[in-house]
């Protein structure tokens, strides 16, 4: 009771482009998002350790909780997302309190 099924989208990507992705999430109808800092990460580009002046090796994690429709829209428009070179995009199921917040 009082729990509503929604989707969690989590994107790991370089910090310098994060604003483009959050603006795009806004466009697709996300009601909000949260950006977390990353200390260090490894992937195909090798090690990316935060703190180089200019911040070009900083990563962030973008967390966005959305309704199924918005999640579908994200998947459908993923081509647009992919030009921002997100490293990792995961989508998973979750329940939220107060479902009215994520239309």
């Amino acid at each position: 009771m009082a729990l509503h099924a929604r989707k969690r989208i989590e994107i790991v990507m370089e910090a310098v482009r994060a604003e483009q992705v959050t603006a795009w999430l806004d466009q697709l109808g996300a009601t909000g998002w949260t950006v977390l800092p990353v200390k260090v990460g490894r992937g195909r580009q090798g090690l990316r350790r935060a703190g180089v002046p200019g911040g070009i090796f900083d990563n962030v994690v973008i967390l966005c909780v959305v309704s199924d429709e918005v999640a579908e829209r994200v998947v459908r428009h993923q081509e647009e997302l992919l030009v921002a070179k997100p490293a990792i995009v995961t989508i998973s199921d979750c329940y939220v309190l107060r479902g009215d917040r994520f239309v």
Partner: protein
Amino acid sequence: MAELIPPPILFFVLGAAAAALRSDLHLPESLAKTLSIYLMVAIGLKGGAALGTPGASEGLWGALGAGVVLSFLLPILAFALLRAASSLDRETAAAVSGHYGSVSVVTFATAIGTLNALGLPHEGFMPAVLAAMETPAIVTALLLANGAVRRHRNRASGPGAPTPLPVLLREVLLNGSIVLLLGSFAIGWFGGEPARAQFAPFAEALFPGALALFLLEMGLVAARQIRAAPGVLDARLFAFGLVMPLIGGALGLGAGLLVGLSVGGVALMAVLSASASYIAVPAAMRMALPKADAGVYVTLSLAVTFPFNVVAGIPIWIAAAQMVVG
């Protein structure tokens, strides 16, 4: 011997050695940012105050013009060299060449520190030349990458589309460092001698210490960058990272002579032309030319050209300026 190497540069060597030995020495990220803010403010205040003294603006316009022209043209030279002698793709070559037209604030700060320690004066307006040289090279780089960029623009709707040139120029001109440098310059100039005196213990007395800590960080970062990206640079690219600053520096020396700067001014003009950006331009290129290989341009400018300039370039250009300026 000890007199020839300014002590702050020894901290660069210490940082590089620590990273090479795989020490875990780390400066907090916010300390590095704080130091770069400090250097900008201190350089700006000092330049502005110097500009306020009678006759100090003589030669300003010539120097600014020379700087802007060099920043516009050096990338063309760099691009031609890279396309002839390396196997970089067009977009990466363009991005790299943008770095070499633009400038490095810390290289400039180190040169100022060395001139001060040697008692060699220089024109107070040189920080304004530094600021003027930061941006034009970016325009040239984007024009050089032209084809690649145009192809990209077709899917410009998504969040990862390359940033268009006007937006990018606005961003770079309003880039934090430039605003801080020019703003402090204006404040130093407007505030005159009372402002200089009030800020002296902060902006002048602490300068060598702050520069030393920043060079320590740069040594760590440069050596770690070399190790993090071992396969990124082949011998030809490495050679480019050493030859290009020599070409740039020589052109800067000539330009400084041409516009009639003093010994210190000519040396600084050479240092600016020889230096490669590793803060503002990499960030701009990451936005504008997303397909260019960031590993190449960061490593070249940060881990090859920056150390070369700090350790060898600055003494070379000071000595050369002393020889050529009658």
